[in-house]
C-alpha cells in the first residue's frame, strides 16, 4: 500500500448509491477483458445527476468526453456512501477510473466490504462532514500512516478515522491474499 496519496478531489453529496456510481445498464460488460472493462471507468459516476456532480457548484463531469479515466483520484463523499445494490462493479468502476481513496462520513455495508475485500479502493471514514469543507479540483494529500488529509490549496488538515480491522486486508491486497497469509485457505 502506498504511504502518501496525492491528487485532485471530486466532491459528492450524501447517499451516493450504486446506481449513481455505475448504472445498471452498464453491468453487462466483462470485468476481466481489458477492452471491455475500461468501459466501467468510462461510465463511473455517470448516474450522478449533473447538478450534484462535482460539488459545491456541480455540473462537473467525473469523466471528460471519451476518456476511460478521470483526472480526479480522491472522492470526498458525505454520509451513507455506496448505498443500494451489492454490485461489486461499483468500487471496480471507481478503481478503473483511477480513484485511489474515498473519504466519506459513513458507508453502506456491502459497498464498504466490496472496496476492502476486493482491494479496489481505500474507504476512509471521518468523524466530521468534509464535503462542505473541500471543493472539487482542490489538491489533496493523504498520509496513510498517520491518517491525515491535507488540503494543499487551503492548508487545512483533517484527521481521518484509522482503518482498523480492514487495514491488514487492504495491506494484503484483498481478502484472498489476507486469508492465504493467515493460513485460512
Amino acid at each position, binding site marked *: 500500500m502506498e504511504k502518501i496519496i496525492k491528487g485532485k478531489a471530486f466532491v459528492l453529496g450524501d*447517499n451516493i*448509491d450504486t*446506481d*449513481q456510481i455505475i*448504472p*445498471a*445498464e452498464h*453491468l*453487462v*460488460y*466483462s*470485468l*476481466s477483458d481489458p477492452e*471491455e472493462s475500461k468501459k466501467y471507468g468510462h461510465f463511473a459516476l455517470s*448516474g*450522478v*445527476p449533473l447538478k450534484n456532480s462535482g460539488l459545491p457548484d456541480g455540473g462537473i463531469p467525473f469523466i471528460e468526453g471519451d476518456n476511460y479515466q478521470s483526472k480526479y483520484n480522491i472522492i470526498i463523499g458525505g*454520509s*451513507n456512501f455506496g*448505498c*443500494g*445494490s*451489492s*454490485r*461489486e*462493479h461499483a468500487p471496480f468502476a471507481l478503481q478503473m477510473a483511477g480513484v485511489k481513496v474515498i473519504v466519506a462520513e*459513513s*458507508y*453502506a*455495508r*456491502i459497498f464498504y*466490504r*466490496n472496496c476492502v*475485500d*476486493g482491494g479496489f479502493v481505500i474507504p476512509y471514514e471521518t468523524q466530521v462532514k468534509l464535503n462542505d469543507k473541500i471543493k472539487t479540483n482542490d489538491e489533496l494529500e493523504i498520509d496513510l500512516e498517520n491518517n491525515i488529509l491535507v488540503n494543499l490549496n487551503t492548508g487545512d488538515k483533517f484527521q481521518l478515522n484509522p482503518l482498523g*480491522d480492514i487495514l491488514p486486508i487492504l495491506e494484503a491486497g*484483498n*481478502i*484472498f491474499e489476507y*486469508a492465504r497469509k493467515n493460513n*485460512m*485457505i
Partner: protein
Amino acid sequence: MGMTITEKILAKASGRKRVEPGENIWLNVDVLMTHDVCGPPTIEIWKREFGDKAKIWDKKKVVIFPDHYIFTKNPQANRNVNILREFASHYDLPNYYDVGTERYKGVCHMALAEEGYNLPGTVLFGTDSHTCTSGAFGMFSTGVGNTDAAFILGTGKIWEKVPESMKFIFEGTLPPYLTAKDLILQVLGDITTEGGTYRALEFDGEAIYSMQMDERMTLTNMAIEAGAMNGIIKADEITEKYVRERTNAPYEIFESDPDAKYREVYKYNVNDIEPLVAKPHSPDNRDTVRNVQGTKLTKCYIGSCTGGKLSDFLNAAKIIFGKQVKVPTFVVPASTYIYNQLEVETINGVSLKQIFENAGCVIAPSSCAACLGGPADTVGRAQDGEVIISTTNRNFPGRMGSKKSEVYLASPLTVAASAVTGVITDPREFL
C-alpha cells in the same frame, strides 16, 4: 444477558455458544445464491483465486437463478446467462434454473422461497443486496459482492461483523387499505436510508404474524433500504406450513430472548398508519398518499420482489377490477409460478390475468425487468422525464432507467388506484 434471534443464528453458524454485536466472526454458510449480473464475475474471481484445482465447497448449496437481464437482445447480457449455463453444466450443478426451460423461475428472492431454500435458523448469502428478503423465514440472510461470494464458493465461509439489532413492533390488526409496503415505508421514513447500517432489523407484533409469507418478505426485503445487514421475522406456523409444503430439509427455529439487547425498539399501532409513498429520489422520502394526491403520472408499475407477488396482484386486481387504466400500466410477476397463478386466482369468477388485460395493463414475463433499469429494450423502463408510481423497492436517481424520471414507491393498492385515475390516488377511495 439474552440474545436476539440474529445473534443466536450467527452463534450457531460460527460454532459458538454466544456472539456479541461488533465482533468479527467466521460463519459457515448454508446456501450461496447468485444471478446473471454477479454470477459471472463471481465465477471468474473464484477461478482466478483458486486456480486449476478450484473446487466448489458444496454443489448442493450453490443456487443460481438468471433473473435480472433475461428478456433482452443485449448481447453482453445474453453472454452472462451463457456463462452461468456453461458453469452449471461443466460442474454439474443441481440447483441451476435455466432461462428458456421449465426450470426458469424468475426473481431470485421469490424463487429461493418457492423452491424451499429458505429454512429457519440457517445462513444464506447472495450476490444481491435484497438477499435480506429470506430473513422473513426466521433465518439470517444478507447480500455480498462478487469477491465475498467467490470466497464462499471456494470455502463455504465468510467473515462478518455481528450486527446490533433494532426491533420494530407492529401492534393491531392490519386495516384493508394497508400492506407490508406501507409498514416498511413508515420505518424507512423514521430511521432513514442509513438508520440501519450494519444492523439487524427485527420485525414483531400481531400485524406481522397475521401476514402471509410473501407479504412478510416485503418487509425484510427492504431492510437493505435502511442500510441494514439483515431483516428478520421469527418463524411461526405460517412459516412452517410454507416451508413444509416445499421441502423436507431439517431446520431449527430460534427466537429472541425476552431480555435480549436492542439498540432501539420502535412500537407502532397499525391503525395509526395511513397509505404511504416514498417520493423521488429516496426510499426514506416518506409522505402520505394524501399529501401527494393528484400528482400526474405517465406510467404505473406493479412488479419486482416487493411488488410482483401473488398478494400484490390480488390487492391490485381488487381495485382494477372492471375499470380501465388511464396511463400505461405494467404487470410483472416476480416468478413464473406467480405468472401462472394469475390465470388460476379469480375475483368474482374472473382471473387476475383477465382483470389486468381487460383494464389495458401490459403483462410481462417474470424477471427483474424495469425495477433496476437494465438494457435499453427492458420492458417498462423509465424514459426521460417520466413520473412513475411503482411497487418496487428503490427509487434512487436513475434506478428505473432514466436519471430524469421521478419514481414514487407505493403499495400495490395505491399503485392500482393511481393506475385507474392517472394521478396518485389514495386506495381508500376504492375500498
